[in-house]
């Protein structure tokens, strides 16, 4: 409510600016602020939301500017066509480039995008036939329409303001929709996001396209504003500046992007007073900003996100499915890492509705088995089938969509997301409406978002986290994070749920709660595959148990049989399993 008022007030003030400030120079600074705000908002999509470091925003800025300049000066397109064309071209190039380049991660991705920006700069400088090389393009027409000349500063200002508002809206729509949830999930943990059935590559490519598209839009505005462009405007320094703006403002935060751009546009102008000490002080201020406000001036977690209203047609929790027999069939599986054979000759099958335990000493290959089933570890030999569907060779996200979900031994909750967001993103793969529908908030998409919310709330209740729904995952205690991971996995509505040591670090009463939770999950028709060291839990919930040792199965059977199996006892040196089994007996 107050946020809405603030936004409305900001828009009114922004719209009144040309009347408030008569000074053309200040208007100029405001216009440049607007152009950089669009650039930084773009970068925020790929870097702030999706977490991919791109130091190549300047390239798409240049592509957009040159696209607009060439279309107006050579073909004579009017201003009203060039920004859309520039946006589209930059977005297309961005997506094309991202396809190979997004294979690369982190700082290496930063370097690859930086390299791309350098290449674009060289091409702008050297392809004289198209770009006029270093001479640059002069005589770009200022926008004129309906007999109004938008070339004057105070009128151009409104064009830029419109572009900024559009970009802010776009950015907020991404942030608040399922697409944004998916991007944040990728930022927090790409692997875990993929295992929720999110097509991470497609999302990253789209985010890259969006970032590039906004940069293209900014470029077209710049070209029409300055009416002269040359390659010097689009150097690597520009790309670095845009990254700086975003980080100083606050990554992942729409307001942060706008504030960061404003600050770094205005600062050098304000520092003109100090003359020759300008850069000295500017540099020190940058250091200060980084050191004293590492999350950016506005902070990383931005404006609280609006949640969709609850939908009418609500599903509650995981849907019970008809048991299939066998649900999971693993045949003659082998996994090797170089010369090391992590799993060999592993065959077993799990019936629908069963809780199937996998135990074994450390290093026996239990987690590797999970990795092989979810597609994270390479399968050397053998087959994995889920209800008749051959999973071997499918990408992880496709396996997730086929009905495999998991939790992780080392917690991989999405640290920077709220609990409810984390669960909602689990529903991603089941959304029927496309990302575009959700971005545009069509009626059907809104209904679906509402349904997701209801379902997510139900799941949070199911695992007992409804009271902390608004907390960031990183602020939750350890046990809560484990349950949050389970809720997230259940949100994908899996047929098979893989729990990797869910009881690790839990005390006895927490273990009891976990046992009850696993039973309730099974009662909903979800088949559970459980890797666990806590024998108390294993013995209490498992219908059957597979024992692995040095990557090979050594026994399989119901808990009682396993407890008394001499081979198993030998593998465990007789201690752990006996005492745990004893404890289970007492229970």
């Amino acid at each position, binding site marked *: 409510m107050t946020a809405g008022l603030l936004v409305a007030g900001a828009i009114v003030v922004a719209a009144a600016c040309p009347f408030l*400030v008569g*000074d*053309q*120079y*200040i208007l*100029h*600074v405001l216009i*440049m602020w607007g152009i950089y705000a669009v650039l930084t908002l773009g970068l925020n999509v790929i870097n702030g939301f999706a977490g991919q470091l791109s130091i190549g925003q300047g390239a798409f800025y240049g592509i957009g500017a040159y696209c607009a300049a060439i279309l107006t000066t050579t073909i004579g397109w009017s201003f009203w066509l060039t920004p859309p064309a520039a946006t589209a071209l930059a977005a297309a190039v961005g997506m094309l480039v991202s396809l190979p380049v997004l294979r690369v991660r982190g700082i290496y991705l930063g370097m690859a995008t930086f390299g791309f920006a350098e290449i674009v700069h060289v091409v702008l*400088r*050297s392809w004289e036939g198209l770009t006029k*090389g*270093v*001479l*640059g393009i*002069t005589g770009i027409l200022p926008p004129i329409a309906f007999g109004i000349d938008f070339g004057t500063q105070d009128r151009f200002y409104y064009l830029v303001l419109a572009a900024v508002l559009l970009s802010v809206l776009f950015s907020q729509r991404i942030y608040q929709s399922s697409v944004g949830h998916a991007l944040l999930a990728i930022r927090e943990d790409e692997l875990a996001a993929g295992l929720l059935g999110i097509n991470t590559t497609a999302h990253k490519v789209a985010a890259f396209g969006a970032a590039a598209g906004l940069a293209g839009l900014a470029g077209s505005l*710049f070209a029409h504003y*300055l*009416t*002269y462009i*040359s390659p*010097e*405007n689009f150097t690597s320094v520009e790309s670095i500046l845009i990254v700086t703006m975003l980080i100083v403002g*606050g990554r992942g935060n729409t*307001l942060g992007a706008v*504030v960061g751009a*404003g*600050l770094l546009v*205005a600062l*050098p*102008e*304000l520092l*003109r*007073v100090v*003359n*020759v000490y*300008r*850069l000295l002080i500017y540099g020190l201020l940058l250091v200060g900003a980084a050191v004293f*406000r590492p999350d950016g*001036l*506005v*902070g990383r*977690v931005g404006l*609280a996100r609006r949640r969709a209203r609850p939908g009418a047609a609500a599903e509650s929790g995981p849907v019970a499915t008809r048991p299939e027999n066998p649900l999971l069939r693993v045949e003659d599986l082998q996994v090797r890492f170089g010369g090391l054979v992590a799993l060999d000759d592993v065959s077993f099958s799990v019936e629908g509705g069963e809780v199937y335990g996998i135990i074994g000493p450390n290093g026996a290959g239990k987690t590797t088995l999970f990795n092989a089933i979810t597609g994270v570890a390479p399968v050397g030999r053998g087959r994995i089938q889920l209800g008749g569907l051959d999973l071997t060779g499918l990408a992880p996200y496709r396996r997730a969509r086929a009905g495999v979900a998991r939790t992780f031994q080392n917690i991989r909750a999405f640290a920077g997301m709220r609990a409810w967001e984390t669960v909602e993103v689990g529903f991603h793969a089941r959304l029927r409406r496309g990302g575009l529908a959700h971005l545009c908030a069509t009626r059907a998409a809104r209904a679906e978002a509402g349904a997701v919310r209801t379902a997510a709330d139900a799941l949070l209740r199911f695992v007992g986290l409804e*009271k*902390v729904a*608004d*907390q*960031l995952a990183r*602020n939750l205690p350890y046990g809560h994070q484990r349950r949050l991971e389970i809720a997230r996995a259940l949100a994908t509505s899996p047929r098979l749920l893989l729990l990797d040591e869910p009881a690790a670090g839990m005390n006895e009463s927490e273990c009891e709660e976990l046992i009850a939770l696993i039973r309730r999950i099974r009662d909903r028709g979800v088949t559970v595959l459980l890797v666990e060291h806590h024998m108390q839990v294993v013995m209490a919930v498992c219908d059957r148990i597979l024992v692995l040792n040095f990557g090979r199965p050594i026994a399989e059977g119901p808990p009682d049989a396993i407890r008394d199996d001499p081979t198993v006892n030998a593998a465990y040196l007789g201690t752990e399993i006996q005492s745990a089994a004893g404890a289970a007996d007492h229970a």
Partner: protein
Amino acid sequence: MVGLKEASEMRGTVMARRTVVRGLLGLGVAFGCALGGAAGASAQELVIGVIAPLTGSKAEQGMQFKEGAELAVADLNRAGGVLGRQLRVELLDDEGQPKNAAAAAQKLAANRNVIGVIGPSSTASCRAALPILERARLVTISPSASTASLVTDHKYMYLMSPAIPFYGPLVPRFAQVELGAKRLAIVKVKDDWGLGVSKATADYARANGMTVVAEVEYAQGDRDFKSQMTAVKAQNPDVIILNTHYTEGAIITKQARELGLAVPILAQGTNVYPQYAEIAGSTAEGALGWVDFLATLDDPGVKRAVAKFQAAYGKPALNYHITSYDGVMVIADAIKKVGNAEDREVIARTVGQLKDFAGLVGKISYDAERLPVRDLFWTTVKGGKWVLYQPTKFKM
């Protein structure tokens, strides 16, 4: 526990919001001050705007603009100002980037006390700033740019350094007449100026029976030219023409000699700086070039100018010290002739009618195309210094 965290997070959000508000307020206040400062300045004071790269790799050039213009303003003020009003320099750093030059131009255009602009330095920066300065009808004199189309495209724009149409053909003619060269190699910086002057060089050469056997280029900021010079050497030129700036020109000279290229080197005025000889060291010996000003030249005007800058700044004057100083003087002269500082259009036109104005070093005139006419000297490097060179066959 949970409640506490929630609260602390909320406080974080509130604080962040407060910071933003405070930041925005601060911005507003600062802008207000900037505005007030401009308006509050004495209405009597006339302002000369200087747009120059005061930081970054072209800072040396920018500092010459600054020092030249400031010295001229000080001289004018000591003599009672212009039309009885004192002058002041407003210094704007564009870091050598066109978009910053545009911002600087905007700032000058918004100030009604500005009467003229010295700068910007490069052709690209000029192109970005000129539409804005032209709208404000501010006469603009670049101390360093020499691209003629800047003047033809913008009626308030003047150059102070010799223009390309003037000196472009000079160098190949010198190569042919004085050195008897037939095969030219051209090394050019890939910028507006480098391409322009190289085209003038090559056009003249081809029209007069010479061949351009190699034409290699580099990007501003490159430091290694051995691959270019290796390619040049393979073509066996009679002479190497340097359409470069002095740092790169000197490194090119040095690397060419290291590769065993022993042919004469003929340089544009942009290379005729003390640093050229300093950087290239012994390999600079015998290099030839034209110049409009050089502190070590044996000329009464030059000596007077050198003494003046020596007294003011304790260091020898460089080219753009002179052109910036003269630029301010030319603007002041036009205002005096017009009799007021308000009639900007007339002032700009009056600058264009300048004939035999006594500049710091020599006489300055503008020709029919409003391009500067200046006296040039030929120089050569001898004993680590550029000294006057008397051509034996070549005549201006």
